[in-house]
C-alpha cells in the first residue's frame, strides 16, 4: 500500500514534469553544451553556478554590447582569413562575432563575467580547452566573418547567391556574415549549433552557388567509407559522399589547409583520403604511388586557383586536371573531355587559355605546351620540340591523331580494329596508369613517361645493347599497330624486321611518337613520324643525317647506325 502511494507520487510528478522537459530538450539551450551551468551536459561547465543565461547575458549592468552581454571581451587582434579567390573583405571580427570569440578564441576565462565575480569551472578549466571549439586568435583557418555580403560581392565572386536569395534561418546581421549566420548558440538540434542542417551541405548552399556543383558526383554519390583509416569525414556526422558534400574536402573551422578551408595541407590529401580504395570507386592513390607519376606529393602550396591556365610555377595537383566541384561520370569520345575533366581550365590548340576545356588534350597543354620550366624532351632528336601542342597540330607532316584524325589511308591496313584512318586518340591512349583495371588517366605507371603499356627505348648504338623485340617490349605500339604486319613489311617500311628484330632497334629510335611540327619539319623528311634519335643515329660518311620519303612505302636514309653506313640506303 505504501509502495502504491509512493508510485503514484512519482508518477504524478513525472506527468507534471515530463511534457515540459521534453519540450525543453528539443528546443532550448538547457541540454546543450552551451548550458555552462552545473546542470549542463558537457564537460566544460561551472563547478557550482546554476544559472544558465548568466555566462553570456545579464538583465542589468551588462556590457554596452547587445544583447545584454555579460562576458568579458577578448580584445584580441585576429589573424584574418584570406585567399586569392576571396572577394569579400573580412575585417576584424565585429557585431556579435566578437561575443562568440570572447570564449572561443581561448584567451578569456570562461567564467569571466561582468555582472559579478568570476564563475569557477569544474575540472580546473579556465579558458576554452584546446581543440576544435577553440578557434584561437588565428582565424585564417576559419570561415571568414564580419564581412559585407551584398549584391556587389555576389556579382564580383560569381559563386555566391545574391543576398536577397538567402532565406531564414540563415541570415545576415545587418549586411554582414557573422557567426550567427550559421550558428544559433541557443539550440543544438542539428549539430555544432547550426541554424539548419549541414546534411548535403544545405547550410553552405544557402549562400554558396558553385558552378557545375548540381551535377557533380561529389554531390550525388551515395558511396560510403569502408572504415579503414583515415576517416575522410572526421569532422562531420555524415556517412555518404552526398551527405558530406562540401565537407568531403572542406572544413569550415580549424581547417588543416587554410586557403579555401581544406581539410588538409598538402592539397592531395583532401582527395586521396577517399580515392584510396576506402570510399571512392577507383583507387587513385595506388597509381599515384607508382614510380612514374604526376607527382602531386612533390608540391605544396604552389597551386593557385587563379593561376594562369598555362602553368608558370612548376607543380601538379589533383585539381590541375580535375575540378572537384564539377566531376561527373559522363562519357565522351576523343578528343572531347569526359565527366571527370569537366570544368577544368586549359590551353586550346591555338595556344589560348580557356576557362573550361572542351577537349581533353587542352588540359595537358597547361603544362606540356612550351612552358618555360618544362624539362627537356625525353629523347634527343634531329628536330627538338618540347611543345606538345605544336607536335600534334593536324597541319604537321605527321602526327599521332590526338587533336584530329590522320585521314591517312597508308597506315590503315596496319591498324588494329577499331582504329581507322578517322580515329582520334586521347593523350591517355598512351599516357595512363598501367593495369587493365586501373583508373583512367595518367596518374602513375610502372613505365617511364607514365605509359599505359610497356614501351622500351634502350638502344646503345650497337646490336648488343638494343632491345629484344617481343610483343611485350613494344606492347604500347602493338596495342594499335599490327605487329605481324609491321614486321612482315606489309603495307609499311619493308625493313622493319631487319631493324627492330635483327638489329634490336626500338621504335623510338626512328619515330618521334607525338609528331613533327610543320614549323620545323616537312613531308619529305618527316613523314611517318620519322625524327631520328641523335644519340643513336649519326650522320652518314657523307656527313648527312636525313630521311627522304620517296612516295608510297619508298624512301632512303642518309645516316650511320649500329656501325652501318647508309649513304644512302634505299627501299
Amino acid at each position: 500500500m505504501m509502495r502504491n502511494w509512493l508510485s503514484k507520487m512519482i508518477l504524478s510528478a513525472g506527468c507534471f514534469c515530463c511534457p515540459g522537459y521534453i519540450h525543453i530538450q528539443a528546443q532550448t539551450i538547457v541540454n546543450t553544451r552551451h548550458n555552462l551551468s552545473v546542470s549542463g551536459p558537457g564537460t566544460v561547465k561551472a563547478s557550482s553556478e546554476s544559472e544558465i543565461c548568466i555566462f553570456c547575458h545579464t538583465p542589468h549592468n551588462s556590457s554596452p554590447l547587445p544583447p545584454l552581454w555579460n562576458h568579458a571581451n577578448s580584445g584580441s587582434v585576429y589573424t584574418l582569413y584570406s585567399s586569392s579567390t576571396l572577394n569579400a573583405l573580412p575585417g576584424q571580427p565585429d557585431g556579435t562575432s566578437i561575443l562568440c570569440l570572447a570564449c572561443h578564441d581561448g584567451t578569456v576565462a570562461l567564467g569571466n563575467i561582468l555582472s559579478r565575480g568570476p564563475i569557477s569551472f569544474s575540472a580546473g578549466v579556465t579558458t576554452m580547452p584546446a581543440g576544435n571549439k577553440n578557434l584561437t586568435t588565428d582565424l585564417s583557418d576559419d570561415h571568414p566573418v564580419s564581412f559585407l555580403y551584398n549584391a556587389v560581392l555576389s556579382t564580383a565572386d560569381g559563386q555566391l547567391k545574391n543576398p536577397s536569395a538567402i532565406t531564414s534561418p540563415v541570415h545576415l546581421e545587418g549586411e554582414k556574415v557573422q557567426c550567427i549566420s550559421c550558428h544559433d548558440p541557443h539550440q543544438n538540434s542539428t549539430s555544432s549549433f547550426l541554424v539548419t542542417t549541414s546534411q548535403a551541405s544545405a547550410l553552405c548552399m544557402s549562400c554558396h552557388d558553385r558552378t557545375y556543383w548540381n551535377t557533380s558526383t561529389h554531390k550525388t554519390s551515395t558511396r560510403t567509407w569502408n572504415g579503414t583509416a583515415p576517416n575522410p569525414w572526421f569532422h562531420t556526422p555524415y556517412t555518404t559522399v552526398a551527405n558530406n558534400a562540401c565537407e568531403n574536402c572542406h572544413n569550415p573551422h580549424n581547417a588543416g589547409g587554410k586557403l579555401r578551408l581544406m581539410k588538409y595541407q598538402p592539397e592531395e590529401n583532401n582527395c586521396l583520403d577517399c580515392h584510396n580504395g576506402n570510399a571512392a570507386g577507383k583507387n587513385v592513390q595506388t597509381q599515384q604511388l607508382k614510380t612514374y607519376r604526376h607527382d602531386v606529393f612533390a608540391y605544396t602550396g604552389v597551386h593557385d586557383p587563379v593561376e594562369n591556365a598555362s602553368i608558370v610555377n612548376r607543380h601538379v595537383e589533383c585539381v590541375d586536371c580535375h575540378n572537384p566541384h564539377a566531376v561527373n561520370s559522363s562519357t565522351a569520345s576523343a578528343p572531347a573531355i569526359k565527366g571527370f575533366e569537366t570544368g577544368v581550365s586549359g590551353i586550346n590548340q591555338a595556344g589560348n587559355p580557356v576557362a573550361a576545356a572542351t577537349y581533353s588534350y587542352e588540359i595537358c597543354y597547361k603544362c606540356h605546351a612550351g612552358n618555360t620550366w618544362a624539362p627537356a624532351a625525353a629523347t634527343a632528336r634531329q628536330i627538338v620540340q618540347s611543345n606538345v601542342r605544336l607536335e600534334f597540330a593536324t597541319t604537321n607532316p605527321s602526327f599521332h591523331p590526338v587533336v584530329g584524325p590522320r585521314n591517312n589511308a597508308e597506315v590503315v591496313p596496319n591498324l588494329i580494329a577499331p582504329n581507322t584512318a578517322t580515329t582520334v586518340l586521347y593523350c591517355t591512349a598512351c599516357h595512363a596508369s598501367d593495369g587493365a583495371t586501373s583508373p583512367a588517366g595518367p596518374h602513375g605507371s610502372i613505365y617511364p613517361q607514365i605509359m599505359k603499356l610497356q614501351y622500351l627505348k634502350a638502344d646503345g648504338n650497337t646490336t648488343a645493347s638494343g632491345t629484344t623485340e617481343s610483343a611485350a617490349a613494344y606492347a604500347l605500339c602493338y596495342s594499335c599497330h599490327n605487329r605481324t604486319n609491321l614486321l612482315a613489311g606489309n603495307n609499311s617500311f619493308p625493313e622493319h624486321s631487319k631493324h627492330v628484330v635483327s638489329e634490336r632497334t626500338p621504335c623510338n629510335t626512328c619515330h618521334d611518337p607525338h609528331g613533327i611540327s610543320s614549323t620545323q619539319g616537312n613531308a619529305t623528311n618527316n613523314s611517318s613520324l620519322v625524327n631520328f634519335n641523335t644519340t643513336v643515329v649519326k650522320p652518314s660518311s657523307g656527313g648527312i643525317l636525313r630521311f627522304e620519303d620517296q612516295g608510297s612505302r619508298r624512301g632512303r636514309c642518309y645516316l650511320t647506325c649500329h656501325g652501318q653506313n647508309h649513304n644512302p640506303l634505299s627501299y
Partner: protein
Amino acid sequence: MKPVKNVCLVIAALFCFQLMQAQTIVGSKHDFSTQAWNTSVGQQICIVCHTPHNASTTVTDAPLWNHASTASTFTLYSSSTLNSTMSQPDASSKLCLSCHDGTVALENFGTTTNGTHFITSVYNLGSGLNNDHPVSFTYDAALATTDGGLKNPTTTASGLGGTISQNMLFGGKMQCASCHDVHNSAGQPKLLLKSNAASALCLTCHAK
C-alpha cells in the same frame, strides 16, 4: 517501508514550506527602517514609497505614491535582434527608477526635496538603460511570433499559478515588476519574483 515513508514526508514538507513560506519586505533589501537617511517618524518602512493620503499622481496609476519621481530621459536598450518597440519607462518601472536611476535622493519622499543620499553600486542603473533588460514594452502573442525566441505570454504558464500575461505583465507590458517583487513576496535574492536557479526566471519567457 517506514524509512521510505519518512523520507517522502520530509520531501513533501520541504516542498510545501517552499511554496507557503510567508515572505515579507521586513528584513529585505527594501526594508529601509534601519537606514540613517530614513528620518521618518519611527523609521517607517512603507513611507519611503507610499502614503495613505495626499499621494503623488505624477506617474499614472502609481500606488499611493510618496517618493519624488525621476525626470530623467533614459537611453533605451537596442539591438539588431530586438523586435519590440522601445519607449521611455512608464508606470511602475518609472517609480522604481525614481530611486534606481541615481538622480533622485533616496530620502526625497513626503515633503523632503533636498536629500543627499543616492543609490550606489550595481543598484544604480543610471539613466543609461542600454545595458539593462528593456522594460515598458508590450509583450503579446504577436511579439512572441515575430521574435521567435519568446514564448506566447497568453498561453505560457508563469510557474506562479497562471500565465505570463496574468502573473508577470502589467497592462500587457513587461515592467521591472515582471521580474522583481519589491515587497519580497518570494523571498528570492535580488527581490526576484521567483527563483532563477537554472535560469528559470529568464526561461519563463525566453524560448532559448
